[in-house]
């Protein structure tokens, strides 16, 4: 005998109502990060020892700023999902868990916003 309702079987989203959303986003951002990290490493190597003006001019180029922007966004989402799993695995107190998961989101958004804002400022002037 199954206790599942037909609607539950159709939706297939599980008790958290998210289905495989977390897992899938982790993989998609992971794939993006793999490509974008390779770009970021090459960029960092090309800028070794460069002065501020050179770095700024380079980062302002559309073909540099754009992948860098994507990397910051993708990495922020990826690290938020990953750290959430770590918190859920090791923190068992309900209050502490919720507080840490929210703090995790704050951290990821703060890092992402700082990166995006900085790159936009570099690219658009100021």
């Amino acid at each position: 005998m199954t206790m599942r309702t037909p609607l539950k079987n159709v939706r297939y989203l599980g008790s958290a109502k998210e289905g495989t959303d977390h897992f899938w986003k982790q993989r998609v951002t992971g794939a993006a990060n793999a490509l974008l990290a390779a770009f970021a490493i090459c960029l960092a190597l090309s800028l070794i020892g460069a002065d501020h003006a050179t770095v700024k001019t380079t980062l302002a180029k559309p073909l540099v700023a754009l992948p860098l922007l994507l990397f910051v966004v993708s990495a922020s989402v990826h690290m938020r999902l990953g750290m959430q799993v770590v918190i859920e695995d090791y923190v068992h107190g309900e209050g502490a868990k919720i507080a840490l998961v929210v703090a995790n989101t704050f951290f990821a958004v703060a890092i992402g916003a700082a990166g995006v804002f900085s790159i936009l400022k570099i690219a658009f002037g100021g």
Partner: protein
Amino acid sequence: MAEAKAERGAKAERPLSPHLQVYRLEINMVMSIIHRITGSALYFGTVIVACVLVAVATGAGTYDHVTGLLSTWLGQLVLLGYTWALLHHLAGGLRHFIWDTGHGFDLKTIDLLSWATLAFSVTGTLLVWGYALFYAGGAAP
């Protein structure tokens, strides 16, 4: 009832279900643990990446200050660790992509993929830092 339960629990030598401290260390398990550790390290390391980007956006003074900090031996050590963590986590992620397809689950392949992860990250780190130190000739990022 509660009394009997407490007494039993205290005295009986019950078999433990297998867990981290009971298993013999396998390379697959070590790489899995390191994947999580490097992921967590990268998480906090993004503060450095954000600082560099903010510094570039702020101005030459701030940028020189931040790169100056990263040029110290401690800064270089952190960046070396960050490079390895990034490459190791990247390789671990690729390994998981292979496993996600349902392939590579026989013991031989599991061991091979696990060792390959480590080989990739160590070789990659050496190449990146070899290039940085000998070809680019600088110390700052």
